[in-house]
């Protein structure tokens, strides 16, 4: 690219950016690495091998996967409806999708706990009719994570659906394809990579989520205790090494999972490109 010789301010802006980035982000993050370097392999295994820690990893991963799956399904329908069907109140609903981004997580947490507790608005209904307990069980965690991650799916799928080329649909339909064939063979494969991105974002957010989860989860060790809560518990006991080990493992695990999803996405893109 052409380097502009007229525009000034390169050194000061880049300098400030790098210094500020280092002070606020990089140096603080590096403490995680340095702290874990002080620990031996045995220390590490002692923390991670603990049954309660392993249980919290299981709880966090299962609930995040479940929530990301449910959100992807309904998020896709919502994005589809918002992009393709005209109906009254659509703009209002569209703006409302971003509520979980704008609403502080502790507000979301206490509200969801109040709604889904056994005598809450929805909780009572589910308890009476289906004998289903949401609050203070792992299902509560899933509900909180669905709330938190809804905009991630809708906002990644929406623009792709919007830019989708209608002429492809027309061509397929005029060649005699049924509506379902058009959807499953033309539309869905084109939207799928974006849906996967939304899924991955939801999942990553779900693993690390703390504020909205702790009120509704009940936080029972081995049953409904999530990883971020365990980190906080360790810190409250001044067990810095324990907290660091769990935090680092959580970062690496979710990073690996995201990498896997990225690879899957590349594979899907390649395949649909060859079609």
């Amino acid at each position, binding site marked *: 690219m052409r380097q502009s010789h007229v525009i000034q301010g390169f050194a000061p802006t880049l300098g*400030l*950016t790098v210094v500020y980035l280092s002070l606020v*982000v990089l140096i603080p993050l590096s403490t995680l690495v340095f702290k874990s370097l002080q620990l031996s392999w045995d220390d590490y295994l002692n923390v991670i091998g603990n049954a309660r820690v392993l249980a919290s990893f299981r709880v966090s991963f299962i609930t995040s996967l479940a929530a990301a799956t449910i959100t992807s399904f309904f998020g896709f329908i919502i994005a589809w409806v918002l992009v393709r069907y005209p109906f009254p109140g659509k703009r209002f609903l569209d703006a409302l999708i971003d509520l979980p981004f704008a*609403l502080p*997580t502790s*507000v979301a947490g*206490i*509200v969801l706990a109040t709604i889904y507790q056994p005598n809450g608005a929805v909780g009572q209904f589910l308890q009476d009719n289906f004998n289903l307990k949401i609050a203070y069980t792992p299902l509560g965690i899933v509900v909180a994570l669905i709330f938190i991650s809804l905009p991630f799916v809708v906002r990644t799928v929406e623009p792709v659906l919007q830019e989708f080329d209608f002429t492809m649909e027309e061509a397929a339909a005029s060649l005699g394809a049924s509506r379902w064939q058009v959807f499953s063979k033309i539309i869905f494969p084109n939207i799928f990579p974006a849906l996967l991105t939304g899924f991955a974002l939801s999942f990553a957010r779900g693993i690390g989520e703390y*504020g909205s989860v702790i009120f509704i989860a009940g936080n029972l060790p081995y049953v409904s205790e999530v990883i971020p809560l365990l980190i906080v518990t360790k810190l409250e006991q001044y067990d810095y090494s324990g907290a660091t080990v769990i935090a680092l493992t959580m970062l690496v695990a979710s990073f690996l999972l995201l990498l896997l999803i990225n690879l899957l996405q590349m594979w899907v893109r390649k395949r649909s490109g060859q079609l």
Partner: protein
Amino acid sequence: MHIATTQTFTAQPTFRDPRWLRVSLILIAVSFIVLFLCVPLILVLSEAFSKGWQAYWSALSEPDTVSAIKLTLITALVTVPLNTLFGLCAAWAITRFEFKGKSLLTTLIDLPFSVSPVISGLIFVLMFGAQGWFGEWLSAHDIKIIFAVPGIILATLFITFPFVARELIPLMQEMGSEEEEAALSLGASSWTTFFKITLPNIKWGLLYGVLLCNARAMGEFGAVSVVSGHIRGLTNTLPLHIEVSYNEYDFVASFASASILAGLAIVTLILKSVLEWKQSQNRV
């Protein structure tokens, strides 16, 4: 061939979906949004006012609530301008110049988004906490960062770090630098060019970034919770005050504070829609 169907098809392809399908999908989407988004929002207000105006008002005028509101405002007043300034610098360096490591820099700026809020708090405890890097030095000099206001501000700075920059970078990239170069070659100073050319072009995007940054700065819970120590009246921001009141079964106080933040969220959403509209107007 089927000329009639092809014609309606070209005009409005979406109407190819049968009516029952359209109606049921709209119903599913709307009920999901109502159940998961509208009901919680309404419940905040109904719970806050469940014991009447008087109880609501006295909960908000309690000294602990007032100090939580003050601390939340102070945190936003410090972090938002700093991160805005940084966002402008980063966007200027990244979009107006070519240099090695540019894509790495862009990736690093987004880093705080992919870190769990709890970990964002943890790293500052590892730095400044009792057994942290600077722990001994700080306690010897009687400086408190963790369990005090500076820690809250640092954690919030980290969390809200990318918002302005990531809004401005694509915008300024798209804008290009021709207009600025023209102004400069006609003899305008760098500052004049920035204020007369760049800023008017990016103002809606900039405000958008500031808006999101502010919403997060005032609402951050996880990271702040780790570094604050929950000292009532001293290190409780509004989101933390909500938690403390809730755990003490003081639901009116909890939901009254929550209603302020829910109000902030609604204002943010409205302004966001307005800014999105303004920005799309600007581009035309």
